[in-house]
């Protein structure tokens, strides 16, 4: 806390009161410009639609009119939209626990002096973070093709049945790309949190006869809970927005329709069907659903993610 200077001192110890507002101006202006205004404009667009009069030719034949909640009614009654939401939820329910479970396991191993290959393992597993999801999907997409996949090569050699990864197994194929891209980053975040745990906690537990596994489960995991919650919230937010992975896989398969995920549905509505208004309504619905799910997640794990931030 900056103290008010005693009277009589000529030199100031506190800043002029306008300074913080000046410093915050770029951030606030950009926040308004790239967050608030677009959101407001989308809400506005979601309440409007084009009315075509006559044959829709000539000036004034297509007019934008107020549509009330009809766009919302349309999107909420759209079976394709619900199917895409359901796929995104399924995707998230498989991806988030698997990815975070693996990340936690690997982080605990990195924190065990008994394991070898720790430095190499950390770098190798973190590497996919540097690969954008479009390129990751491109690489995996080829690796899923029976003519290319080493998995199919082995199964063929052994005369075993080969799974159709880009057909019936498409959900698994998309989830795998998500795990590949996300596990390393989350592992490093959790590992960093583990390293901040004071080591005398472990010494005490060892003296009490705890095994390494017990130490991991009873001391390490509770200590890194805030980091786990944080990674959980961000992963959950990301899953409902899944777009690049299935979108990039589409040229390689027939089993991904153009509305496979909510964002793909929004994209198709807006840019293929040229129905900006329904797409705007769908954006609002998806944003609210995402907020709901992530708040739900926070409530579920007792909202400790931001609590260490001292106000």
């Amino acid at each position: 806390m900056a103290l008010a200077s005693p009277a009589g001192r000529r030199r100031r110890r506190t800043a002029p009161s306008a300074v913080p507002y000046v410093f915050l101006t770029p951030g606030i202006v950009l926040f308004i410009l790239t967050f608030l205004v677009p959101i407001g404009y989308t809400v506005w667009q979601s309440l409007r639609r084009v009315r075509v009069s006559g044959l829709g030719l000539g000036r004034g034949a297509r007019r934008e009119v107020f549509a009330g909640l009809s766009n919302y009614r349309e999107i909420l009654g759209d079976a394709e939209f619900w199917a895409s939401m359901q796929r995104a939820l399924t995707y998230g329910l498989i991806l988030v626990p698997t990815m975070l479970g693996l990340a936690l396991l690997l982080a605990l191993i990195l924190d065990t002096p008994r394991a070898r290959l720790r430095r190499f393992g950390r770098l190798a597993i973190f590497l996919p973070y540097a690969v954008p999801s479009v390129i990751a999907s491109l690489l995996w997409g080829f690796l899923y093709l029976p003519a290319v996949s080493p998995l199919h090569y082995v199964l063929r050699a052994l005369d075993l049945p080969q799974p159709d990864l880009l057909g019936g197994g498409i959900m698994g194929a998309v989830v795998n790309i998500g795990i590949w891209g996300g596990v390393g980053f989350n592992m490093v975040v959790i590992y960093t949190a583990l390293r901040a745990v004071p080591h005398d906690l472990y010494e005490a537990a060892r003296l009490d006869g705890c095994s390494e596994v017990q130490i991991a489960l009873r001391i390490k995991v509770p200590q890194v809970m805030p980091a786990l919650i944080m990674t959980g919230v961000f992963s959950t937010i990301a899953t409902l927005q899944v777009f690049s992975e299935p979108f990039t896989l589409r040229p390689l398969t027939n089993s991904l329709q153009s509305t496979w995920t909510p964002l793909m549905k929004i994209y198709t509505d807006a840019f293929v069907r040229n129905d900006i208004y329904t797409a705007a309504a769908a954006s609002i619905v998806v944003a609210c659903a995402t907020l709901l799910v992530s708040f739900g997640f926070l409530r579920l794990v007792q909202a400790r993610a931001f609590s260490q931030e001292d106000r």
Partner: protein
Amino acid sequence: MTTAAPARVAAPVGTVPSRPTARRTRVSLAPTLVLAVGAAYCLLPVAWVLVAATKSPAELFSTFTLAPSTSLWRNITGLSAYGHGVFWRWTVNTAIYAGVGALASSFVSGLSGYTLAKFRFPGRTAIFNVLLAGVLVPGITLALPQYLLIAKLGLANTYLSVLLPSVLSPYGIYLARVYAGAAVSDTLIEAARTDGASEWRILAQVAFPIMRPGLVTIFLFQFVAIWNNFLLPFIMLTDDRKFPLTVGLYTMLNRGNTLPSLYTLTITGALLSILPLIALFLTLQRYWRLDLISGAVKN
């Protein structure tokens, strides 16, 4: 992991003074094996793209997946010739979008974070909470709204249309605030003020140098976020000479449906675009302050 450690440490520690370190660091097989499998899984696609980029179009789907060939140079020249060298244009564009965007973003985040951490003024908590709520606004869901507005302003299909929405990062501001709160001491700022330094000078010569590790972290984060963002440039840009690599490679893959020889060039392009970033990460990773995210930095 579960089979890794029987309770062998239960033996009183004091009884084995002769080789205590040997006891502690005995290698156990299971965790090492898990790490090795994890590493192999993560390296597989990278190893594959290294090999596949050396194959000719005829070999891509016929020879064994991990058997290298000799066409790497031919593929690179083929890729350079594609669309009059548009691939290299995409590379430059990506560097501009991610580099300039991340630089601007770390400056704005640093400035806002420092202000929110180190000044007491009316509205501070409210402003911070509103910005923080932005962390929970799904980033990609904003792409369509941002497009609608940018198109309205007549800015669609410009560099600005991709750069502008990439600058503000609520998460970056949050990180900068945590870092400034922990690293920049109030006494130092007060001492500078007593010496008559202006607020700008304190910012540039006292606060930012101390916050540098945090700012580097925010820069790398935002760099990856912009480089990873596909939807935003994909809907903002129509001119392929303004594409970043991700959008460019996607359009190549898409055309491969009708022109299969493009697959080899796309794969070569994928290899060339991830190599510099992997190199960047391996060199910069020790400047990462990931304890910022995991919550290990405390005020």
